[in-house]
């Protein structure tokens, strides 16, 4: 009995000691709110490492405002309410100056009220459905008009697709994207019977029926293309089934919005060559910045096989912008940095310049790549210029009158241009 109590007591003491050690004075604290366990760890761990790399990089350059940057990493464990709790911990207890975090929309929605309550600042680095603009969040991933619409244009004009299968995981991002795309396709004269929409649950692994359906749908002689908003882990079984049922990219190309280098790195892509993805970044794009970034990433992570991907670039851009904004504002105070952020420009890794707009979304180029046998993408098309991220889609009746502008005099995330009112607050 004594022994047990001893263990218990000593573990409590040890816990207490470790809490106190985390406090260090005079550092600028950067919160990292990415899941390191649970279902999302597979994607989010990489972003945690990216932030750590950026921080190390910045410290090597002498820090920021003469202070060192210090990372505060917590694990919200892919548990959505825990994102709110951990966000609160970062802001209220650790007093971080900025947070880089979240992947899924629901986790962002979870932490959002906390950010607004405690006036925190968060950078969200993943492509998402739009329909949101918070003063406390900067969205450095793509909005639907920076990914979906150009991708469909490409399929229509360059591939000649006439029939459309919209496959997605059943959650808000695919629902929104497909809604926007459906409206867009109908407006382009595609008939409703030439559009098939199908939703599957998270982590769906048995794709036999659906792939067979797609095959049948695509065998009517009209060129058929699949637009996939299938999320995360469900992709690999889907592509395997495609390969095994003999659907090649030349028969029915699949355009994915959630499949990047990292998703493909766990997978032999030979049967997938030619399938497509639309992103704002591909590792294969050769520019000086990108080469440098890839090199330092491989060095930081200590693995030559590791790849880079679009959300990493979004994290990179977000971090660089934040550093510039802090330097410009001369402080890490959230309100000052928030205003300083607007208009900040940072070179993209794929060339060109990313600019933070007044709606807290970026201007970025859109690239379309084909999957190669080595798991990389080869760019086959890109927008001639950068595209401004649109927080509120023009193709949805509910939001076409809404705009977001966080500069005076509007200073509103959902401003209705018809009624000239900030409809939310």
């Amino acid at each position, binding site marked *: 009995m004594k022994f047990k109590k001893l263990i218990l007591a000593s573990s409590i003491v040890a816990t207490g000691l470790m809490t106190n050690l985390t406090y260090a004075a005079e550092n600028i604290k950067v919160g990292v709110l990415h899941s390191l366990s649970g279902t999302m760890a597979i994607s989010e761990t990489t972003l945690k490492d990216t932030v750590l790399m950026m921080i190390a990089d910045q410290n090597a350059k002498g820090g920021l405002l003469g202070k060192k940057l210090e990372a505060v990493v917590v694990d919200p464990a892919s548990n959505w309410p825990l994102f709110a709790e951990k966000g609160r911990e970062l802001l209220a207890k650790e007093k971080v100056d900025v947070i880089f975090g979240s992947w899924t929309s629901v986790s962002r929605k979870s932490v959002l009220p906390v950010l607004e309550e405690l006036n925190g600042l968060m950078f969200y680095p993943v492509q998402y459905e739009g329909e949101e603009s918070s003063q406390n969040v900067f969205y450095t991933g793509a909005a639907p008009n920076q990914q979906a619409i150009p991708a469909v244009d490409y399929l229509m004009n360059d591939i000649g697709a006439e029939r459309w299968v919209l496959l997605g995981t059943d959650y808000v991002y695919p629902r929104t994207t497909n809604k926007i795309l459906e409206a867009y396709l109908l407006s382009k004269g595609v008939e409703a019977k030439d559009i098939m929409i199908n939703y599957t649950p998270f982590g769906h692994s048995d794709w036999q029926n659906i792939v*067979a359906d797609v095959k049948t749908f695509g065998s*009517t002689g009209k060129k058929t293309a699949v637009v996939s908003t299938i999320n995360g882990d469900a992709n690999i079984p889907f592509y395997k089934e495609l390969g*095994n049922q003999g659907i090649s990219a030349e028969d029915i190309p699949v355009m994915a919005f959630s499949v990047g280098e990292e998703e493909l790195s766990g997978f032999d892509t030979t049967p997938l060559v030619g399938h497509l993805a639309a992103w704002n970044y591909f590792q294969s794009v050769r520019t000086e910045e990108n080469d440098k970034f890839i090199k330092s990433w491989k060095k930081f992570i200590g693995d030559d096989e590791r790849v880079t991907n679009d959300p990493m670039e979004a994290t990179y851009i977000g971090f660089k912008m934040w550093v510039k904004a802090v330097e410009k504002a001369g402080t890490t105070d959230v309100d000052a940095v928030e205003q300083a952020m607007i208009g900040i420009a940072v070179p993209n890794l794929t060339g060109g310049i990313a600019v933070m707009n007044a709606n807290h979304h970026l201007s970025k180029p859109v690239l379309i790549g084909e999957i190669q046998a080595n798991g990389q993408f*080869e760019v086959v098309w890109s927008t001639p210029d950068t595209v401004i991220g649109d927080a509120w889609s023009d193709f949805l009746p509910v939001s076409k009158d809404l705009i977001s502008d966080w500069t005076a005099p509007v200073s509103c995330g959902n401003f209705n241009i018809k009624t000239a009112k900030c409809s939310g607050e």
Partner: protein
Amino acid sequence: MLRIFSLLVFSCMSWFALAENAPATESNTQFETLLAQLPSTKLSKMAPLVDKIAAQPSPQVPELLQHLMEGELYYLKAANELVYAQPNQQQTYDLTSVLKTEALAPVSIYALKKIRTNNRIRGQIRDLLANMYLSNSSPAVRLQAIKQLLDNPSKTGITSITRLIKTEQEKEIRELMSVVLLIEQLEKGQTAEKLAAISQLEGRLEPTVKNALVKELKKLSASQDLSISQDKSELHKALTRAIGQMEQDGDFYQLLDYLFFGLSMGSVLLLAAIGLTITFGVMGVINMAHGEMMMLGAYTTYVIQQTFPNLIEYSLLMAVPAAFLVSGLVGVLIERGVIRFLKGRPLETLLATFGISLILQQLVRTVFSPLNRQVEAPQWMSGSLEINPIFSLTYNRLYIIIFALMVFFSLLMILKKSSLGLHVRAVSQNRDMARALSIKSSWVDAITFGLGSGVAGIAGVALSQLTNVGPNLGQDYIIDSFLVVVFGGVGSLWGTLVAAMTLGTFNKFLEPSMGPVLANIIVLVGLVLFIQKRPKGLFPQKGRSAE
């Protein structure tokens, strides 16, 4: 000449022998001029250029197109010439000149510029090549070519097929060629010819045939003078009948499809649940770490493939015993280290094994990183067995069905026929009596748990071919596994088999009309209701051992 070239290209022989220097004729210079345009042509302008190149008589054309399609055609900047490049072990590229014979030194990727294609151009090249390969000496190549053309009949050189069909020896190829010609006849011919074509096409299953028929029917309906002409109404009737027949066949094969899908899903469930039948069913341990045993099996497959990169074809065969050993050993360790202290408290095993499952997940996350690992599919697991043009069975699913049944029956044999099985059953039925008969019950427990875990490991090898190999692999299957075991009746191997197959088939037959989510919900609700009717599952254990 063409035949030889095509054969060589298709059978992936070395490229070196091919760079034969043809005499510099006029056509050859034209060929070279076209080639010279390749590096500077934009993707959008590529299609006409490729057509022009394909029309060249030069014997290098098929090989060139083949390489272009496969993305191996590069422009060597320094020498201003086109080369075929392949990556080698030293991170550089081995080169073969397209036009010249002299050998080239390997260069880094930076010295090269890829001649880019996209889906559309590759499709175009594939059709062009198929037309060329129709006269190939290898029947397999010819068959592949005609199948490719059949998917896309508008791209087909009808005249060449009309010519080739006369000399074609293979029955199957001849038949497919005639289908192409019949479709042509259906589209362009007079009414009588159309009727003849329809009667000959009846009973075929190819979607292309159906599309042609439907198109013809639409054309006919659009012309609106149905009542006037006798043969038009006859044509209409014939078309409707033929399409109806095709649809009927289609429905029949679709049912077969669903059945296959259902059985294949069932066998995955069977594999996932069968180890649990032993640890949970026979020993009464609520083994929440069961999924992680499968995960370990899948990672073992990965490690085997990493260790023997040259033996991918055999890696799965090696992985089966290895995964059995790894998961089995971990199972024995868990039994010895934790579970044996929980004798008589089976519900608490839930708590301990849940803790173990967390530890194992984190362990692979720490050792192998949280990212998914790449487990390759051997050649024989890829692709599908084509029974007819609209019904084919994917090899991986087919093998997994067979594999699941093999595992099932071997386990059945072990438990029913071997002395180990006898001991296992004895201990599970009456521990004290078994001990009294000098059976080492603690040893039997460890072996039983090891056996159940080992079988889970084997299941992991199969799952590595279907899904992601990552730390969450086990979690995705644990709930289903428990449901299957309970539905079948705890402790009954046959029950597990029937339960898994029933659940899989139900799911797959419901899915087309309900969608995957609703199908799953309905199956779950049905299961809950079923348990009310039969509180001990499909095959309840009888006698004293019954819980």
